[in-house]
């Protein structure tokens, strides 16, 4: 199925970047990464202030952007070897994404928001059998108030509850990789800790690799490994003070 297996898929790292260079519109490179790997089931904290190329890196990992040079290998698959549609399908099948906030579609209810992930991935649908039941299970284990589960609209959920629904969506159907882009920055300290605890236990249960991007270093000790984007990126990006 995979057209260019660089490493045997079973033992390949979850994420591997090699000799990667990326620039927007033929400008000077924004990212220049010699080698970056994330092992399977790892919980990596990637530190980077805004403007450091974080969003670009996420785009490259998700297969939405293609580097000018070098490889992006996800689970042993070189994304550049796949076409645009295949990359989208690959993302749908293997990567769950949580944004900073506004993760939910306001016109869908809680369960529909979670099962939306399965609509774009037959593989994830097949994995769970009954998406709605799995969504309910995930939401319960992520401690979403069952009262709110029954309620139709997601508009009335607190930000903390919204992020848990987003996490459930990113995890439904057990994708191998979970990328979280500042998912806790909109939460207060107590909620933040509770959210991370639940997220970790769900990831552990499914063996999910977690790439957690944030500028909040106070969370770093909770992870198995911490890395600054500036450490792996050979381009020094001028960050506004």
């Amino acid at each position: 199925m995979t057209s260019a297996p660089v490493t045997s898929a079973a033992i390949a790292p979850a994420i591997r970047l090699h000799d990667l260079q990326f620039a927007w519109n033929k400008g000077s490179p924004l990212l220049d990464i010699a080698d970056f790997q994330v092992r399977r089931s790892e919980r990596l904290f990637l530190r980077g202030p805004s403007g450091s190329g974080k969003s670009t890196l996420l785009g490259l990992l998700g297969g939405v952007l293609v580097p000018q040079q070098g490889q992006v290998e996800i689970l042993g698959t070189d994304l550049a070897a796949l076409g645009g549609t295949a990359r989208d399908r690959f993302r749908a099948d293997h990567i769950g994404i949580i944004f900073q906030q506004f993760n939910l579609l306001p016109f869908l209810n809680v369960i529909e928001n979670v099962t939306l992930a399965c609509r774009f991935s037959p593989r994830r649908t097949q994995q769970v059998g009954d998406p709605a039941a799995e969504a309910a299970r995930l939401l319960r284990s992520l401690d979403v108030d069952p009262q709110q589960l029954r309620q139709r609209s997601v508009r009335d959920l607190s930000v903390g509850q919204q992020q848990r629904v987003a996490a459930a969506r990113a995890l439904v159907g057990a994708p191998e990789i979970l990328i979280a882009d500042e998912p806790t920055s909109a939460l207060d300290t107590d909620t933040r800790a509770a959210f991370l605890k639940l997220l970790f236990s769900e990831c552990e249960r499914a063996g999910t690799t977690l790439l957690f991007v944030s500028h909040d270093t106070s969370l770093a000790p909770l992870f198995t490994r911490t890395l600054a984007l500036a450490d792996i990126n050979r381009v020094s990006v001028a960050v506004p003070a």
Partner: protein
Amino acid sequence: MTLLPLALKSLANRRFTVALTLATIAISVALLLGVQRVHDEARRSFASTISGTDLIVGARSGPINLLLYSIFHIGDATNNVAWRSYLEISALPAVDWAVPISLGDSHRGFRVVGTTGEMFTHYRYGAKHALEFSAGAAFDDLYDAVVGAEVADKLGYAVVQSIVLSHGTGALADEHADKPFRIVGILQPSGTPVDTSVFVSLAAIQAIHADWQSGTHIPGQEISADAARKLDLTPTTITAFLLGLKSRPAVFGLQRQIDDYHAEPLLAILPGIALQQLWGLVGVAENALLIVSALVVVAGLLGMLTAMITTLNERRREMAILRALGAHPRVMFGLLVFEAAVLTVCGIVLGLALLYAGLALGAGYAQAHYGLHVGLDFPGTRELILLGAVCGGGILAGCLPAWLAYRHALADGLSLRL
């Protein structure tokens, strides 16, 4: 098609703007089809003002002019036709029947037509419909009158009512008060100028003018209504006359013969051809109305476009979420085109509902007041083509926001614009 419910739920979420957009499209579609229907019906009714008559003959002027004053009662004849010419031509072997028309008087704004009883048997309109009486019968006595449906309706006339004719057609016309008429028949609505006419006999026209000369009463020479009965009431001139032929192919030969008539300059026209020429003039305004209603539809679709493009920015988040879940930018394109299609099709359906509701309510009025029969027929081929064009236009219009969304999706990648 898992995206279908997604698109529908997204629309339902914006139900207020969606309802307004639907209303705009529905009203514009109803207007377009309504104008189209009235236009078609007006043309049909216009073209069928007179049928079954092979030639209209009058003094030499222009074909449209002759048609206007003889049939539509608009304007006046430049000249009259001698009674002798009428007798001579109507006696030609090719002629089956002839109906004389003598105009010039009026009754409270409605034209008086001096004619013979044959008018009611030979005048045809539409698909060869003959005139029918809703009450009474044709005139018999000298001072009998038959009125059109609209005359009776507007003036509240019934059979045996007495009316007075006026000399000339102006508002301040003198009255023929000394010779009142009795309404003996009321015609059914026909949607033709017959509805606004008062019919009397040719002899009656002679009688009321017996004591007039050059448009005024001759003082001291009053002739009473009864005295007039004893006079010779054969007219010397008439305004025009209608001819029916024994065989239609003879019509061009007879037309040439009348145009070359020796005794006086006459003109014979084929009603169908003159009606078409006249519609060419009148139709311009009608076509302008059609164009305007088509532009209203364009405005309606532009309204939808505006509404969709305004939502694009706030929906950028929605697009980024879908993209993160693995949706190709094509999906964004498809969602928006589908949305435009749903809006257009629902707008059209609502527009049709509006049109038929309007027609059902207005049909009686149009029939009664304008003689227009605007039916609740299923949309015809032309209308279906128009609706198809609206539908296509809507979907095509939807391609613009769809393309913008596609571009956004490509440019934004996985970053969530807040």
